[in-house]
Structures are given as C-alpha cells and as structure tokens.
C-alpha cells in the first residue's frame, strides 16, 4: 500500500475521537446547508404541488429584476448593509478592547452578561421598544433632545433618520454578542508579551495597539470577510418590524419585497430566485474581499 495512505490511516486512527466529535458538525452542514442547495433549482421552475415541477428557465429572475422598484429595493439593501458594516463592524472590536482593560473580574463578567442579553430578544420586542422611544415627540429620546434645546424628531417616520435607527438598534442588540470572538482572541494572547512590553517601558496604550490589536488582526479579517458573505442580508426581521408607510420606499429591502410579492402569495420560486441571487453576490464578495485582504495585509480566510 502507498506509504502516504498508510500514514493517513494511522493519523485518522490516532485522532479517531476528534473525527467522531467532528462528525455531527459535518452532518449539520450537510443536512442544513448543502442538501438544501439542491432545492435552489426551483428558482428555475414553476412549483407543482403535485407532480413534476415545470422548468421555466429564468422566468422568476425576470419577474424579480423587471419590477419597477427592484432597482430601488436593491439600492436600499446595499445602502443599509453598507451602513451597518461601516458603522457597526468596529464596535464589537472597540468593546472587546475596553472590556479587556477592565481589571475587576466581577465587573467584567457583569458587563458582559448585561450586553449579551439584547441578543436574545426578538426583533418584535426590540422594534416595540425603539418605536416607543423614538416615534413620538414625547418619547424618551426626544425629551432629552428638548432638554438640550433641540427640536423633537420623529425618527421612525423620517426618511433621513430611519436607516440610522437600523444601525443603532442593530448595534444595541449585537455589540455584546459579536464581541465574544474578539474577547476570546484577546484572552488567548500570551501574558508574556505584555510582561516583556512592560519591562521595556511600553505604556498601556502602546501595549493595546502593538500587542492586543496586532494579535487579533487575523480574527478581525476573518470575521470581516465572512460578514461580506452576508452583505445582501440587510436584516429582514429588523426591517419588517420597524418599517412603516412613511418610510417604506427608503427601507424596503430585497427580503421584505420578496416576502410581500412572493412568499405571502405562495410563490416560493421567486423567493428562491432572490435567495440564490443574494447568495451568488455574497460568494463573489467573499472571494473578492479575501483576495483584496491577501494583497493588502497578507491575511486571508484560507
């Protein structure tokens, strides 16, 4: 038998427990992520509830792209996603940094627990909270604005502010949870590095910049590239629960459009076409960002 195959078998046998532990994860991805890809073919078919689906080629893609509002919906999706990535992405990193500087273990754990909680609230609840805070001139936020001499703003019905409401509410919900990876990455930095820097006279700021940040750059890049894969997911639950008639044309995204025009009318092919379209763009963005990152920083996903 080939020497390398013998070695491979030996390695597998040696690590058999690890492979067994990995098996459920592989199974999960196969069942929930890879097998469903086969279902994407219905975007090229008219679904028959009984009998064979009918092949219709690009009919549903034409329906998706030919809508008089598709251009605007597409632009809304990109704008909201870009705002979220641009303004929200750095926040968990900053939060993890700040948390790392807290010396009291009890305070750190307490803060972590508190900021994780919003992640477990549904968007229905969060939308209710934000609407009551921001919609009315008598809401809590407007009371504060009036106190400092600023005219009240109807944030929820303002085409100027509503997208920022999405960014802020997303940040409020997810900063804590999304910081977990960065906190873990910071915790794995060897203490020796800080000790050596301290002996060399590095200040806290210099340690944070040259050790902490430098050490978690690969994590930041990986998370950023993976996030680009979800770029076209501007947040259905959030937008659906927070949108209203006053701003609908400024916040209507691909997902809410497809939900209204396709899914509520039982047109799953249209929904699948939109999903595949978003997936292809996401894949393209992952590869592009990965290549760019390799060129600029030498770090990539693989």
């Amino acid at each position, binding site marked *: 038998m080939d020497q390398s195959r013998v070695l491979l078998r030996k390695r597998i046998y040696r690590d*058999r427990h690890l492979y067994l532990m990995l098996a459920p994860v592989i199974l999960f991805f196969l069942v929930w992520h890879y097998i469903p890809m086969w279902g994407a073919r219905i975007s090229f078919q008219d679904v028959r509830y009984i009998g064979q689906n009918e092949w219709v080629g690009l009919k549903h893609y034409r329906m998706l792209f030919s809508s008089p509002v598709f251009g605007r919906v597409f632009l809304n999706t990109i704008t909201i996603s870009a705002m979220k990535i641009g303004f929200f992405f750095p926040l968990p990193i900053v939060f993890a940094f700040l948390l790392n500087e807290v010396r009291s273990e009890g305070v750190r754990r307490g803060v972590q627990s508190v900021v994780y909680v919003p992640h477990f609230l549904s968007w229905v609840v969060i939308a209710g909270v934000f609407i009551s805070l921001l919609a009315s001139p008598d809401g809590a936020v407007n009371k504060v604005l009036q106190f400092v001499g600023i005219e009240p703003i109807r944030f929820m019905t303002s085409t100027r502010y509503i997208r920022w409401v999405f960014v802020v509410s997303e940040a409020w919900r997810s900063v804590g949870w999304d910081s977990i990876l960065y906190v873990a990455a910071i915790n794995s930095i060897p203490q020796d590095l800080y000790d050596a820097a301290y002996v060399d006279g590095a200040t806290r700021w210099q340690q944070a910049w040259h050790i902490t940040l430098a050490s978690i750059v690969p994590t930041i890049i990986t998370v950023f590239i993976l996030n680009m894969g979800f770029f076209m997911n501007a947040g259905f639950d959030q937008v659906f629960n927070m949108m209203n008639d006053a701003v609908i044309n400024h916040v209507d995204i691909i997902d809410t459009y497809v939900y209204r025009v396709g899914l509520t009318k039982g047109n799953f092919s249209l929904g699948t076409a939109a999903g595949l379209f978003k997936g292809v763009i996401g894949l393209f963005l992952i590869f592009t960002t990965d290549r760019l990152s390799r060129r600029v920083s030498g770090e990539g996903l693989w």
Partner: protein
Amino acid sequence: MKRLLVTGLVLMFATAFAFAGGAGEEPGPSDDGVTTIRIVGKDFSPSEEWNIQHIRQIESGFAEYSGEQIEIELVQVPEGAYAEKLNLMLLGGDIPDLIYFQGGDEVIANQGLLVDLLPYVNASSVMQDVLMEFNMQRLENYPYLLWIAPPRGRTAVVREDWFEEAGGEVPETIDDYYELFAAIKANHPDTFVMTDTGNTARMDYTFDHAFGLTATWVMEDGGYVYKKVSEGERDKLEFYQRLYAEGILDNEYVTTAWDTMEDKLYTGQVGLVYGTAGIVLDIYNDKLAENQGVNLVPLPPAQGVGQGYSVSSAKETRGWAISATSEHPDLVFELLEFMASDEGQFLDRYGLEGIHYTMDGDTVVFTEEKSNWWPRFHEVMSWDAPTPMLGPAGLTGWDFLLEYSVGDPDFPIPEELSPTWDALENLYKEYSYKIISGEYSISRFDDFVEEWYALGGDRVTEYANEVLR
C-alpha cells in the same frame, strides 16, 4: 476504523432523515363506516384541548345531522406566519381534505388542486339561505374559497362621555363629523380625538364613499380609474391633512399597531377608533367599560357623494377550500354545510358547554370564558341565535353593515402585474402619509398621480378597464 466511521455516519444520517421527515401519518381508511376528514386551520391546532373537545362535539352533531360517522383529524401547521407555513406544508405533499387559507391559495387553485365549490353551493339549500349576495359574487369570480362571515367593515366608535360632551348628535355629513371631532378636541385639547393603525384604511371605511370613492375602480371621464388616484382621493387626503394638523388625528397613527390603538382607547389617549363590526366592537366596549367606566357609541358612515361601506366582489381573501385530492369531497362539503346550519352554528358560536356557557332550561348563560372563544368555521350573519351573542355596540355595527354595505365590482390583480401593483401601493403609502402629515402640500397629489401612472399604473388601469367592461 474506516468501517466504524462509515457505519457511524450512515447511522447518523439515517436518524437525522428519519426525524427530519416528521411523524406524518396518512389518513386511515374508512373503518366501520367512519370516514376520516383531515382539517387544517389557523389557530385550530390539535394540541389545544378546547379544539379537540370541539371536534368531538362536531362529530356527534354531524352524525345526527347527516347520519354519517366521521372522525375529524386536525393537522398541525408548523409555527410561524400561517399562510407561509401552510403553503410549505402543502408543498411537502401533506394536503388535508379541508384547508383554511389566508392567502397563497391562488397558486394552488391555478394548479387545479382545489375543488370548484359553486356546484355544491348551488345545490345546497342551507348555503343558499346563509350566503349573502357579496359571498355569491365572490364565489362566482373565484369558486374555490368559502367564507361565511359578515363583510369586514370597520365602524367608527366613540366613547359615550366624550360624545355626549360634544353635543351627542350622531353625525351624518363630513361637516357633521368635522364638527364632532372639533368639539371633542376643544374639550380634550391634550389628547388626539382618534387614531388608526399604520395607515388610514380603517378611517376610509367611514369616509371613502362620502368623497366619491364608492368602489376600488371609479368612473372618471368615461373610464375606470383607481380610486387612490382619483379626484375624490385628493379631497379625502386634504380632509385628513386638516384633521392631522389640528391634532384631531393621532400624529403617530402611522407607527400605531392594532394593540397600541386599543391601548390608546382604553387609557383615554384617544376617544374614537374604527373597529370591525360585530364581536370586536363588543370587546372594545367591554374593555373600555372596564378601564374607563364608559361605553362606546357606534357611528354610521359619513354621507356625501355617497354613503356606505365598500364590499369587494373580487374574491374571498380567506376561507375554506376542499382539496381536489380528497377522497370524500361531498362529505367534506356536507361538513361545511352542517357548520353553517343552525345546529352547527350553535356548536361553533357558543363554544363548549360547561366552559364557555351553561344551559338554564333553553337559555344559554355565558361564563367568563365566553370572550376566549371564537367560531372555528363560520359566522353566519342571519343566524337567529337563541340567546343573543352580541351586545349593543356589536349589534349596531352589524346593523350599519347591513344597511350601508355596497357591492364593489373589484377583481384580483393577475400574477404578472403583482410586482407592479406592489410598487404602486407603496408609492401611495408614502405620498399619502406625507400629504396627511403636512410634509407635502396637497398640490403634490398631482405629482403622485403622474408618478403612479408612469410606474406602471397605466398598464393596470388598462387591464382594469378591459376586465370591468
């Protein structure tokens, strides 16, 4: 080792697929003359004990009514938005005999999977008695959904004490309504007079006809025009703009949901809302009485160019359908018929004896649980209930509906035009809010109309004129 790994993976796959497939069971064959009828309905879950008790009483009642023994099996719909989950369930091949739809039915009907109910209805004396004219028109346009309930009109209801303070005159014209609103506002300057839920659809029931919006497509210059781009709509929006500017219409109506609307009524933040005629008005009335110690006064639709509530004849937007794959369509229809009969209505409307009501001789005595029961099948408007179900508010609302409902010869928008229609409706939503809130002056209505036609409104209007002529 390899064998072990492969065996392990195969076992896991097999287990996963076995569970992923669910525990669906095929309906059992008729045994000892008992026929199984599988039913799927919204809020009609087999995991609710009341539903199980209800289907058992229906089985007994049906046996007496028809002499047929049936066993009803309720089908569980996965959690989530009903219309979406139902369609996914049907797509998976699980198609019960009787299906309640709340959207998404047209795709299935177009594939010939729903039974044409018109021949059944025409042959049924019970159905002929209970169906209203608009029901029959809808069935003729779209014979796959049966929905027996009063037309869903929204009636204006005002709290009695504020109404009396403002003179207590039932308004007739638009001007009367404005005077009533203004008087209430003068008496309660720190509150809004009324609110709506996200848009003005509820208010429109009271005011549309008065402004000449007597149907979805109205005649203008010899052709049919969508009501929202008609001259009447301009006048109506101008009126609403005035109400908004004067603090009569809640300035947060666009972010108000139905539950917050109710809360505003019960806590005195507004004094007038628009509710579905019938039991919903009774619920509003009871809760207001509980919280504020006053009752509600229902008001008729405003009088102007016309007076009435539009009742679309396009198609039922919800209702019961019989699957074309059912082995017993006649029996399933007979069940629908039974539920519309006096005996079926007694069961479906009063609920469970001992829980929702008790009997005192021949009189039904409601318990406190009455408000937690709702009919699972039909709400026949002409049913002569031995003990009245509705209170004064609910009954008056129904009387208004009977008196003022006007047929609206509407039609369903075809699939190829639905993305355009969605875009047109969204355009209206934004413009109407901005005009009402004063962000745009009423002169911008012309821009809206122009944009509406350019966005595809001309195609839809052309189609409407073809259909309606």
